[in-house]
């Protein structure tokens, strides 16, 4: 008798209701069980780095803001850090505090957005509407502080573009009180709901070992028990002044499983952590200048003279984001601009997460890393209408060629 059962392939994507952006999975499925997965990114590559290398640095800042609509403060923060390092620009303390406040507010709205998406993937639309309703509060505060719900346009090289006057503090503290009051309700609806637990406990497992080896970042790594957080490990801005440690499910008083449920715990805890940070920033923020270059032409002139390279890293809501820039004297824009979004590091952990799970788990596991495809897609090669794949060897050869070309 034939022992082997039929393995058939189910394609998910590039367009599928479970995916908010385009990516392609090909699952090897046996019955309802997933035996293997092949992941093909590259459908939403926009060539942003290329565009950036042909513009001046102020324009690049706005471009960086549009890499991701949800982490729309993270990318400018990292870019400014990298450029400030390359050009040797100091940032006044007050500006650093304002950057931290806005980026922590962004973390709150991003995690609440994720909670809604995750609930929708589980078919729990009531929770989706609840999370997005409470998310409106932080969106209102962001609009109040920056003028925009997304794309805040706050950081600029050498500081920030807009101060937070003391009249606005009460509104922010009122928001903090609002969310603290909601925390019990949110953890009740997400963590103590039997149907959510049934769908997320022991689903999409990632062991600490795998998370470490596959370089998982952000909440995905922390939910697997790795205490890994750029804000704690390599403090930047004023994060070093705060007592801040990476949160894992252990901080909620439960054992680490490394499943989707743990990722919900970590994100909920981080909302609380961000509230604490914002509160502390408001309390400790010193008076003073908000930028070291009040005049944009002076800033541009300084940047044009700058020569050097810089790396910025920041803990975005989804994990570590890195920008690398190289500036050359006499060139207005960056000669090299390299962006690494957190989703890129979290692609590989998808493979062990999907293995031996069911078809029904695909949407929630895909959502569990909070993917952002268009931030992550760096390359897509289409030649004569056919899409080619680049293997490791091809990429290595290309990078050698480029090094030779750059070094002349």
């Amino acid at each position, binding site marked *: 008798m034939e022992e082997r059962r039929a393995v058939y392939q189910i394609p998910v994507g590039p367009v599928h209701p479970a995916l908010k952006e385009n990516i392609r999975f090909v699952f090897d499925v046996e019955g309802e069980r997933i035996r293997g997965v092949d992941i093909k990114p590259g459908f939403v590559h926009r060539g942003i780095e290329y565009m950036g290398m042909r513009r001046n640095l102020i324009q690049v800042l706005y471009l960086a803001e549009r890499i991701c609509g949800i982490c729309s403060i993270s990318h400018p923060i990292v870019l400014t850090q990298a450029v400030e390092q390359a050009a040797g620009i100091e940032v006044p303390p007050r500006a650093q505090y304002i950057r931290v406040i806005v980026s922590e507010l962004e973390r709150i709205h991003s995690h609440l957005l994720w909670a809604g998406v995750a609930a929708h993937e589980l078919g729990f639309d009531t929770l989706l509407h609840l999370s997005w309703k409470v998310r409106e509060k932080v969106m209102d505060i962001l609009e109040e502080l920056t003028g925009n719900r997304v794309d805040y346009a706050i950081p600029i090289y050498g500081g920030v573009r807009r101060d937070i006057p003391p009249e606005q503090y009460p509104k922010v503290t009122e928001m903090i009180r609002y969310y603290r009051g909601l925390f019990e309700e949110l953890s009740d609806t997400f963590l103590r709901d039997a149907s959510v637990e049934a769908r997320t406990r022991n689903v999409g497992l990632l062991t600490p070992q795998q998370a470490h080896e596959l370089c998982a970042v952000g909440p995905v790594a922390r939910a697997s028990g790795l205490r890994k957080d750029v804000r704690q490990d390599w403090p930047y801005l004023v994060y070093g002044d705060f007592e801040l440690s990476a949160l894992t499910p252990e901080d909620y008083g439960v054992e680490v499983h490394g499943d989707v449920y743990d990722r919900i715990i970590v994100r909920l805890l981080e909302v609380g952590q961000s509230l604490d940070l914002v509160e502390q920033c408001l309390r400790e923020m010193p008076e003073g200048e908000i930028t070291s270059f009040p005049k944009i032409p002076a800033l541009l002139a300084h940047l044009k003279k700058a020569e050097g390279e810089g790396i910025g890293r920041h803990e975005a809501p989804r994990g570590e984001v890195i920008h690398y820039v190289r500036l050359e004297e006499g060139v207005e824009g960056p000669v090299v601009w390299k962006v690494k979004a957190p989703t890129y590091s979290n692609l590989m952990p998808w493979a062990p997460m999907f293995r031996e799970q069911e078809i029904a788990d*695909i949407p929630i596991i895909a959502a569990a890393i909070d993917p952002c495809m268009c931030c992550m897609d760096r390359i897509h090669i289409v030649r004569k209408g056919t899409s080619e794949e680049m293997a490791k060897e091809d990429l290595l050869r290309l990078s050698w060629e480029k090094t030779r070309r750059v070094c002349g």
Partner: protein
Amino acid sequence: MTALHLVWQSAVVVLGSGVLGLMYKGLDRKLAARMQGRIGPPLRQPFLDVGKLMVKENVVPRDAVPWLFHAAPLVAVVAAVTVLLYLPLGPYAPVLSGHGDLVLILYLLAVPAVAMALGGFASGSPFASVGAQREIVMMMSYEFPLAIVVVGVVWRLSTLGLSPAFSMATVAANPLWTLVGPLGVLGLALLLLCLLVVTPAELSKIPFDIPEAETEIAGGLMVEYSGVNLALFYLADAVKTVAMGALVVALFFPYGIAGPLGLGGAWGALVDQLFFFVKVFAVVFAAVTTVRVAMARLKVDQVARGFWIPVTAAGLAGLALLVLDKVVMG
């Protein structure tokens, strides 16, 4: 009963059930939206949806089996309407009373699901195939508890010397709650609970909407359907909602209010008819609307385990209590 009578009564049921089903759908959507903090669509939205689908293109996939693909929605809607002809839809006997009994109703209720599964397999799409497999597993899960409920009620009626016990008219004319002892009431309550759990599964609503599961398999069974065919499935679903509500009402709440209110004649019939609509809606609201806003979608193995162990156990316990009641009451 003359043939002419039969024809016009059936016509009223067919048209009425469609309208009623779509009205219930509208109410369900509106109330669910309010519970989720949304405004929700207007009450007439399901009518607009059906109207729009009727004029849309009816696409047949290249890999489909066309005759089966087209037959499935038709079979589903016809079977769903036929169930209603055997159910009491107000203070009078079913249209086809005496031509079929509860067992036939059970079979007819299964037909739309089978038709959907066949339509899914005939679609020639992997998502539809997965959906169809899930639909079959779902049916295997909830049919047994459903049968236990029906058998329990009917068996207790037959021990009271009422016959034909399987006839819907007998069931509806003799509410069991007052005919059995305290143990029997407890048993009936358990059976009612089982039936209320089976209702959303029978109607493929959250948490049991796994054959369609929009976020997982993109609509599953329905993924390749469009235009008139999709409208027919939509109507079949609406009519089946009325049928499930009417079945629960007929088995457990066949009471009228015209008697207690002292109304008779045409006014009494009208009041009872309206009261019947309210009862059916109350059942749909309790078993479908509130459940679907309060839960996440389950997985197919969780559903199968849930129906085979706890729900079946509750049903059997209810049945055992009815047997005990019979022994005690003599």
